[in-house]
């Protein structure tokens, strides 16, 4: 029976020849992840309520201290301690301490822990990010994670697959973020609810792995169960020297069934933003240009990997953050921070008057280091701008790509990066 990539991975996990959308299956998990907000409840449920003493396979679990760490207050320190103790007690192999890891969704791919063809779950909604590496990856809750820890398997409803085809190439300045914001604007925050988003087409062949991770990262913002890309030479090269296990890529059969196929001309996609208060509130940049800002935030699992920071630095080089505006830059991992230091990017940020922080989810979920007050306006490279996401329910958050964010920090209003930098240097764009 012809199947999509998503169906093939779930069928293999369930030990079945084939599966169809709507089937409920019990499937083996290849890799699982939790962090400082989801491990404490998962650990308690697993040990105290389910009565399991050990994890099914401690070599296939990663834990990051990223959401409220370094501890933002005493209660967060307790969550950090419970996370640390559980990881130690269970012998979890891929435990990332403060200062050594960073945001889970950057840390797992950069360490080659989530691989093509695999079934990956994470107790965090943005776990769909990993699908850029040709796997099935989805966000789950803490009780789910406790079940995976105890048994190594979990129940899934096989999703219908929506296919997104991107013809032609993205234009100058236009990034993966602009593309996915545009798509979510077209289909809505529940446009792919509980479904698989399979992204294919010419435009994706010309973007690097980090940009691809931005696209799958935001699958959840359309309500999707997972986002998945095809395996190609870019995937293979990214995994060379990183992959911690052998892997088998997966392809969709040519006659696989799709619930719907969406076709987009990538060349027609403009620079864009999501306006307050929803990720599907898309507008071309030109419509919101000139909007006054209080804060600019470059960070998160969506857009704070090294290529994002390079573009931000190229725009900021030789400029200053506008008076009355604060720019906060939070790398998404410790490895990203080390690389930024090597390349002299941090020097550029500091000279521009930006606040450079340690790697953490931080301001993205209104945790710490950049929480917004009542009525404040922020341009952010993050993923979600529902009311109160970054702080006060009456704060206004616009979502954009990092070059737009950097340029807007310089001018103090939402701006096209071309106003600050003539052309993105070759090799960075």
């Amino acid at each position, binding site marked *: 029976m012809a199947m999509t990539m998503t169906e093939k991975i779930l069928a293999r996990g369930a030990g079945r020849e084939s599966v169809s959308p709507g089937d*409920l299956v019990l499937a083996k998990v290849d890799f699982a992840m939790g962090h400082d*907000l*989801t491990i*404490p*409840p998962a650990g*308690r*449920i697993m040990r105290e*309520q*389910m*009565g*399991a003493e050990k994890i099914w396979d401690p070599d296939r679990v990663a834990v990051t201290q990223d*959401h*409220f760490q370094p501890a933002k*207050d005493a*209660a*967060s320190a307790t*969550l950090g301690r419970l996370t640390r103790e559980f990881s130690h007690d269970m012998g979890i192999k891929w435990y990332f301490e403060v200062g050594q890891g960073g945001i889970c969704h950057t840390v797992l791919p950069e360490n080659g822990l989530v691989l093509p063809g695999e079934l990956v779950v*994470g*107790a*965090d*909604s943005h*776990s769909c990010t990993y699908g850029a590496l040709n796997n099935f990856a989805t*966000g*789950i*809750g*803490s*009780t*789910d994670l*406790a*079940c995976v820890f*105890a*048994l190594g398997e979990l*129940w899934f*409803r096989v999703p219908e697959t929506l296919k997104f085809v991107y013809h032609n190439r993205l234009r100058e300045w236009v990034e993966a973020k602009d593309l996915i914001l545009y798509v979510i604007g077209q289909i809505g*925050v*529940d446009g792919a*609810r*509980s479904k698989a988003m399979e992204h294919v087409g010419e435009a994706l062949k010309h973007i690097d792995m980090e940009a691809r991770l931005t696209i799958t990262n935001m699958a*959840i913002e359309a*309500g999707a*169960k997972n986002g998945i890309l095809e395996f190609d030479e870019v995937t293979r090269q990214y995994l060379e020297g990183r992959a911690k296990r052998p892997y088998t890529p997966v392809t969709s059969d040519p006659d696989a069934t799709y619930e719907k196929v969406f076709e987009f001309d990538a060349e027609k996609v403009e620079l864009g933003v999501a306006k307050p208060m*929803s990720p599907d509130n898309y507008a071309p940049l030109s419509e919101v240009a000139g909007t006054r800002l209080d804060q600019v935030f470059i960070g998160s699992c969506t857009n704070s990997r090294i290529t994002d920071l390079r573009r931000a630095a190229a725009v900021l080089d030789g400029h200053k953050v506008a008076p009355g505006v604060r720019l906060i830059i939070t790398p998404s991992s410790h490895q990203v921070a080390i690389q930024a230091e090597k390349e002299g990017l941090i020097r550029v940020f500091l000279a521009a008057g930006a606040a450079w922080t340690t790697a953490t989810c931080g301001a993205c*979920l*209104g*945790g710490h280091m950049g929480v917004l007050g009542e009525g404040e306006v922020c341009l952010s490279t993050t993923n*979600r701008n*529902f*009311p*109160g*996401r970054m702080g006060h*329910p*009456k704060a206004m958050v616009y979502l954009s790509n990092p070059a737009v964010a950097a340029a807007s920090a310089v001018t103090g209003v939402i701006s096209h990066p071309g106003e600050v930098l003539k052309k993105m240097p070759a090799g960075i764009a």
Partner: protein
Amino acid sequence: MTAPQVIRGRTWKFGANIDTDQIIPAKYAIYSLDEKELGKHAMEGVPGREGWAAKVTPGDILVADSNFGCGSSREIAPIAIRGAGISLVIADSYARIFFRNAINMGYPILQSPQAAEGVSEGDDLEVDLEAGIVRNFTRGDEYPCEPFPSFMNELIHMGGLVPWVRKRLQERRQLAGRR
């Protein structure tokens, strides 16, 4: 523990795309292990609903429009709603992680576009979980709910994923003991 089969309560009505950060703002995630404390802040992030949890009478029913619980995977969203005293959630549709979290907790949630459309705040509802029917005494109306697949029904009847995993672990241990 198994859920009661018939639930009666007063309705609180919410709109579409209420995300988890509105259901329980992330700053309260520090209370991840404290259902009562989470309950005090349930729905606090929904504009105009500040102080809502204090007005809830235990047993009240929450009815929402489409895509309820979108956003984060944090299980504190359904936990906060339960902690506030809400006996049951009915929505036009749910975001998938909120849906799984509620089912896994053994917390009764129902999907009924008809109820989401027909019910207004304050309506007196009776819900027959077994039959999947919502009766609106205020309006003299009745709405069907979408049936769950049998595995999900089994989970809800057992009281959630915890007893299910306990049972499976026990089976595995017995199997290992026999070898």
